[in-house]
């Protein structure tokens, strides 16, 4: 075991586990993933109860277990209740172990959701890590790889993180078979930043990705988007990729001065190319209506890094119920106050402050 692997806060006497309610809101899976990530970051054990208890199939699903297993490996954790259908799970990490990881998760779990779970702790792991995750990379119920690499990771880099992510091979639902590789350097503390202004849009790009389907589908998608945004030919592209099974996604990438946002439409059997394109378009239009830099999905992704940094601020286009439950979970683990001011003209202001522990002592 690596001695450099201890998180910042020394793990003292065994804490009473935090008890998290897994039934609240829509974010059963999100609550679990955030709890796993933050438990690893802080060393605090937790117990999550009533996992997805309001759902028709309550308890843990396969995709949740893939995250639990990955977190267990990273944190050499003791786990109980990690079985399908389980509505209660206890997780007690002993460390954060940096290193070379390989997770093979099939199509049931999304590679990006697993990455989301283990990335925060690996940033504190003392030594560099390399992570290979095989499975689905483009799945309608998870952030697609391009969103992670083009939108989320650049913000992390602004916060001081050294990280590279490569899509070796895409994996579409249902065949899967995708592969992503991530290398990262740990750091002492994330640098607090302000992200309140998107600046000018410097670039608009439109791209369709196609596997084992007619490239014509991709052309129809980018044609529609090109017309909507009056883009030059150089800003559009259709990419035919190698993958285990058929698949198709359409992207709109809005590169602004201070942030990049990615909007995606997912292809599906029986769904016309134009509908796929319009799905991406709807996301982009919603974003463009506001002047805030951080879109709906990035809002959620940035919560944990900003909270880890202890302070910072960003403006978001949307506050979803998802976001609110996530904030509650984060504040259970970290001494941070997250304030959401919805009154602003230019979006919703998220402010992060370290809780003043001296006040209470």
């Amino acid at each position, binding site marked *: 075991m690596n001695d450099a692997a201890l998180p910042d806060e020394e793990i003292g006497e065994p804490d009473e586990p935090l008890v998290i309610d897994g039934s609240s809101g829509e974010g059963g899976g999100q609550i679990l993933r955030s709890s796993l990530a933050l438990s690893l970051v802080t060393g605090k054990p937790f117990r999550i109860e009533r996992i997805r208890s309001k759902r028709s199939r309550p308890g843990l699903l*396969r995709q949740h277990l893939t995250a639990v297993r990955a977190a267990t490996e990273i944190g050499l954790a003791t786990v109980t209740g990690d*079985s399908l*259908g389980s509505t209660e799970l206890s997780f007690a990490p002993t460390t954060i172990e940096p290193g070379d990881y390989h997770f093979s998760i*099939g*199509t*049931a779990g999304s590679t990006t959701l697993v990455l989301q779970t283990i990335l925060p702790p690996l940033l504190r792991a003392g030594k560099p890590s390399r992570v290979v995750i095989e499975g689905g990379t483009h799945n309608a119920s998870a952030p697609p790889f391009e969103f992670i690499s083009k939108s989320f990771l650049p913000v992390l880099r602004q916060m001081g993180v050294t990280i590279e992510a490569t899509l070796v091979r895409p994996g579409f639902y*249902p065949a899967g*078979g995708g592969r992503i590789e991530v290398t990262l350097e740990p750091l002492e503390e994330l640098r607090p930043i302000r992200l309140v202004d998107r600046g000018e849009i410097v670039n608009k790009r439109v791209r369709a990705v196609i596997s084992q389907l007619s490239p014509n589908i991709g052309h129809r998608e980018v044609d529609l988007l090109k017309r909507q945004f009056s883009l030059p030919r150089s800003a559009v592209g259709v990419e035919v990729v190698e993958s285990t099974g058929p698949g198709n996604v359409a992207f709109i990438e809005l590169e602004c001065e201070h942030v990049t946002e990615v909007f995606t439409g997912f292809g599906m059997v029986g769904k016309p190319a134009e509908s796929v394109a319009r799905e991406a378009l709807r996301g982009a239009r919603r974003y463009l209506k506001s002047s805030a830099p951080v879109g709906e999905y990035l809002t959620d992704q940035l919560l944990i890094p900003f909270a880890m940094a202890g302070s910072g601020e960003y403006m978001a286009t949307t506050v979803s119920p998802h976001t609110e439950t996530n904030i509650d979970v984060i504040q259970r683990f970290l001494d941070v106050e997250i304030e959401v001011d919805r009154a602003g003209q230019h979006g919703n202001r998220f402010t992060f402050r370290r809780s003043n522990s001296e006040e209470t002592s």
Partner: protein
Amino acid sequence: MDKKTVIVAVLGSQLDQGRGDGRWARWRPTVAICQHEDMIVDRLELAVQAEYTELAEIVVDDIRAVSPETEIRVHVLEQEDPWDFEEVYAGFHEWSATMDLDPGRDDVLVSITTGTHVAQICLFLLTESRHLPGRLLQCSPPRKRVPNALGELSIIDLDLSRYDRIASRFVREQEQGLEFLKSGIQTKSDSFNNLIERIEQVAVRSRDPMLLTGPTGAGKSQLARRVYELKIARHQIAGKFVEINCATIRGDAAMSALFGHVSGAFTGAARDRAGLLRAADGGVLFLDEIGELGLDEQAMLLRAIEEKRFLPVGSDNEEASDFQLIAGTNLDLNLAVRCGEFREDLLARINLWTFRLLSLAERREDIEPNVDYELDQFARRTGRRLSFNREARDHFLQFAARRSSTWNGNFRDLNAAIVRMGTLASGGRVGATEVREEITRLRDSWSGGQPVAGDTVAVLATVLSAEEIDELDRFDRSQLADVIRVCQANGSLSAAGRELFSVSRLRKRSSNDADRLRKYLARFGLDWSRVHPAGP
């Protein structure tokens, strides 16, 4: 530790088909099983016909991609004819032995969606016989228009008791069976009701011999008939109910009555006679008082039970009959075996399911419902509705429940009492007079009641241990039994002596009957206190 999910499946040459890119849009049951969000397949045991190994490679690769958690073991079936039941079954049977399935460790699900119908039938049979210790897995295709859908999985447990709705049906059916066995009498005695519950289970599930013991009149014959009728109602048998009291066919006639004879077998055997065993073919043979059967007949009967074959008297040709035996006895057959009166091997054979019926005195709480039942029976037989007036009924029931009412003849006594009162009652109404008279009649019959002659062993057993009885000569047995009987009926040694020596004492001037009796008992190591029930 959670169990590992092990899927046993046959590659579907049609349903799992698909080579090109389009295969991912198709529903392929065996692939889909490994894709569900709420199931992780830890191991897949996949049988593949030799000609489809190429298809198997595609399916296996695809499953590896979607479910890296799954270990896949391919078993190639060398089948000449996949529609030949015997061959397919043998192949699967062999395959099942190679899987190393442990129901304590593995949750085995046998997929019956793919494969030929013959394969599906074989998998079902292997699961049902627990060669594949698991449950059946049924995959149904996705509803139309839902792309990439996985369809539904449903698990079928062949242990039907796990299904509430089916189980409640069984309970209802069982309750009907119990009701039936009790002739609709709402009995309250727990021990009797438990006994009937057991008998119902055995009656429905088994064709092995049944032995009903208990005092005469406890209802053995009636219960045997109800067991038969229950089996008929459940379509388990189709033959007749044949009943005989072995005490009535002692001697030469017994052989011929039971096993039949051919004409000319003996004087008077003018025509062939089929015999009772033949008559009971496919049905139930109730042999009451089986302890009274001679040793020769016992030997023949044993063979008839075990091999379903027997030799009619005077015949060289064996007859066959497949009957279920229900035997009744009020003797302790174990004791009879020790005394050489009953074959040990026959007892062992019929002793599999032994049920002791309680005497009426042991289940007094059932007297009232049985009175009502007898009233109904009386009405049914005579066409006259019969009822008690309130006071008379209470009086009779109080009397019936008293400890001093010994009900020696058990239900036969109760039946007789109701018949007598019903016959004497005017206007179909039993009044105080009829009841009073009947009570007197019953008391009289019970006070004269002594153990029935012929129960030698039973009487000896009240005083001696089985080993001690074994030591006795037959010569001594009946004499000693009679002496014990008299002792038990008298209040003192002298009184018993007077009764025993009542003839010879007349010829003597002085007599010491008590001393004679004491000395006689001493020969067997007995004394008054051991013999007399009131002794210390």
